[in-house]
């Protein structure tokens, strides 16, 4: 045995990745239920999704506040009673509000499902939006914001999105003390009434389902036209981009690090360049062996970590490079970022590196599809974006077959340093 020689490996292109299909049921009132079963464990995940994200709000923070406060008391029970009942069964009921959608996700042991569904029904269909609950929320969110505003990375994330999309666009709009102060129970209730309706609801279930899962869902969510029918328009909202590309902000005079952001617009996921850019982004800053990590962390030691990401927003995307670097080396970091962008434009990716990235990406997808909870996440992302498995398989095909020439061409098209916004917040 020679320890210098690597064992033989099976190459990524040989892995046959399949996305396990879902089963679809329709409740009596028309709500679609997407199911991926796996009986190996005794756990269940149930997610209810509504088009109730910040895209639809007329006043800042309405969507997030509505989503949060639905769980804090109904006409029948107080927040404490509801939370105690859920937590008594060891269950977790998490809520989240994003740009497009807002969600309620239940995680529980399968054996407790029957006791938990009526509680979920109450949270979804009968929230009270009590003034006192809102007042506590406003105060606590303002305090949290005050703490976050001292963090350079938090501040940098706000500014870079503002440059890319504009103050008034949901992608660039930020939370403010004023916005929290302006929230009213009536406007929350109105937003709720319009968006959390039976005809806007989709349900995704994964894991070990009780035998009577669908009848139970029908009983609690399929029997009536709860909250009535509400037709939602999804207006296209124009982005307003900043003219000035270079920004330096001092947030904390004693800061020992700066948050660096280098970002540009990029087309959304429906554009044919999107899956290709997922590969180029991985090479640039999407994994530990990336160009940015190898240079700026592993060679120069300027930072604990540097990453680039492609936003998964629906209307338009962006490529964003982000790091926290030593205060004295922020400018040197930006210089190195530009060097790496230019290198991708000037030199084709070596065959070895491209092959490594293909294998890494495929290996990661294989790991990400391990288990029903993960599989339903993929499906959810496809279904909510009006896509199907062909999109998924096309992305795999691109990873397996994209050439160094295509990637260089893509870099020349999208990685020109002068087209990037750059920001340092100290």
């Amino acid at each position, binding site marked *: 045995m020679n320890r210098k020689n690597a064992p033989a490996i099976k190459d990524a292109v040989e892995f046959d990745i399949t996305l396990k299909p879902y089963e679809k049921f329709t409740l009596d009132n028309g709500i679609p239920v997407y199911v991926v079963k796996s009986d190996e464990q005794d756990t269940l995940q149930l997610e209810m999704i509504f088009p109730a994200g910040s895209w639809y709000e007329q006043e800042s923070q309405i969507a997030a506040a509505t989503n949060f406060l639905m769980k804090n008391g109904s006409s029948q029970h107080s927040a404490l009673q509801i939370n105690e009942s859920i937590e008594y069964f060891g269950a977790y009921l998490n809520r989240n509000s994003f740009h497009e959608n807002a969600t309620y996700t239940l995680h529980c*042991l399968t054996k407790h499902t029957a006791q938990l569904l009526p509680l979920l029904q109450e949270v979804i269909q009968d929230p009270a939006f009590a003034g006192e609950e809102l007042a506590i929320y406003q105060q606590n969110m303002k305090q949290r914001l005050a703490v976050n505003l001292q963090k350079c990375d938090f501040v940098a994330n706000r500014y870079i999105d503002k440059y890319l999309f504009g103050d008034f666009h949901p992608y660039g709009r930020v939370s403010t003390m004023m916005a929290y102060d302006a929230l009213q129970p009536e406007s929350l209730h109105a937003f709720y009434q319009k968006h959390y309706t039976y005809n806007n609801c989709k349900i995704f279930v994964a894991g070990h389902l009780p035998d009577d899962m669908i009848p139970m869902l029908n009983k609690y969510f399929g029997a009536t036209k709860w909250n009535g029918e509400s037709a939602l328009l999804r207006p296209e909202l124009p982005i307003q981009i900043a003219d000035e590309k270079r920004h330096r902000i001092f947030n904390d005079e004693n800061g020992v690090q700066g948050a660096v952001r280098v970002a540009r617009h990029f087309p959304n996921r429906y554009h044919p360049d999107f899956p290709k850019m997922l590969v180029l982004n991985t090479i640039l800053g999407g994994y530990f062996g990336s160009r940015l990590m190898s240079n700026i962390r592993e060679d120069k030691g300027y930072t604990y970590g540097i990453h680039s990401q492609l936003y998964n927003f629906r209307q338009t995307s962006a490529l964003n490079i982000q790091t926290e670097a030593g205060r004295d080396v922020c400018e040197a970091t930006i210089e190195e970022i530009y060097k790496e962008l230019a290198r991708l434009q000037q030199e084709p990716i070596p065959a070895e590196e491209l092959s490594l990235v293909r294998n890494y990406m495929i290996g990661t997808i294989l790991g990400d599809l391990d288990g029903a909870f993960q599989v339903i996440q993929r499906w959810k992302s496809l279904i909510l974006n009006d896509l199907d498995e062909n999109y998924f398989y096309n992305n795999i095909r691109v990873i397996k077959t994209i050439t160094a020439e295509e990637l260089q061409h893509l870099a020349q098209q999208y990685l020109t340093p002068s087209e990037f916004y750059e920001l340092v917040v100290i």
Partner: protein
Amino acid sequence: MIHYNKFTLANGLRVIVHEDHTTPMAVLNVLYDVGSRDEEPERTGFAHLFEHLMFGGSVNIPDYDEPLQMAGGENNAFTTSDLTNYYVQLPAENIETAFWLESDRMLSLAFGEKSLDVQRKVVIEEFKEHYINKPYGDVWHKMRQLAYSTHPYRWMTIGKELSHIETASLADVKAFFFKYYRPVNAILVAAGKVTTEQVKALAEKWFGDIPAGEKYQRQIPVEPPQTAAHKLEVKANVPLDALYKCYHIYPRQDKRYYAADLVSDILGGGSSSRLHQVLVKEKKLFSNIECYHFGTLDAGLLTIEGKLVKGVKMKDAEKAIQEELSKLQQTVIPERELQKVKNRVESLLAFEDMSLLNRANNLAFYELMGDAALMNTEFENYETVTTEDIHREANIIFNEKNSNTIYYYADNQI
């Protein structure tokens, strides 16, 4: 019930195999029995710095990450006050790559000057990012020093001060490696779509010829019982006053640990927990309040921390916490409340076990505690806790003499 097989190589390396043929993936987890509690007081942060150096190339393989990524794998590592854990996840077909990489760095590192040079800088940036450049980031540094007089838990895993990391030398690195990173101090777990026969052969092939090393005798100074309350006032450039209270609890393998763990859940677990309900929702004294502990192997700290609502006086906030603790000391909790926190543990354990990686991590951790089999009986330790145990432990733990309090004042206003 997590099934596994266990065997030991001639050099003392303990190997655990957890077969799961429902996944296409495999995990290789290597745990080394060394953490920041094993450091010298003048050279803190070393175990963690060393974790970074483990990725700087080994004696026969110049780069750890590249061949792994080529095999479709991902990896990471973490260091705690008690242990250092490395893990790899990759398509099961390529598991031998993980054996090759992990065995070579157990055999010997490359010990390059450049790697040490760069990783010193990287760790210093990590230190700044998490503990200096964040509001309240220094609180654990201060709390550990306040709460421990003797035990090495008095410094953070990242290190007591930057200078300790700055002055680490290559000689220190080598000595550390050959003392701690030996088969006799390690636990290997292979999990996923693998067979025990296959793992036996691979472990023998790649790890069998590594010199055993010497089992070191851990001699950690014992923390004497605390006999008087410790208090510290801090003023810093933060927007809100904050209050931190820590109480010494029990070692991880003490029977009483489980009651202490449930006490922390009664006070701080979920939105129906006592502290959140009374102090955030009813009295509106805190904008958030938490109760937690780190589950350390030696006796750790049960922590209550919260940010005060603007305008609330520190004295009043502390008094209100004290009232909640007194309730636990005076009145036995209802059975339903105890059942709730037990149900939460049951559920938490079930969700943890869903991930192959967690199962592999946990098997190694329980083996470190003496026997991987403990993983399968862990919930029973919680089930046997009674309301009387909770009552008794609340009286022991929340003794004023056992308390460490930091009053963290904002020196400017929002």
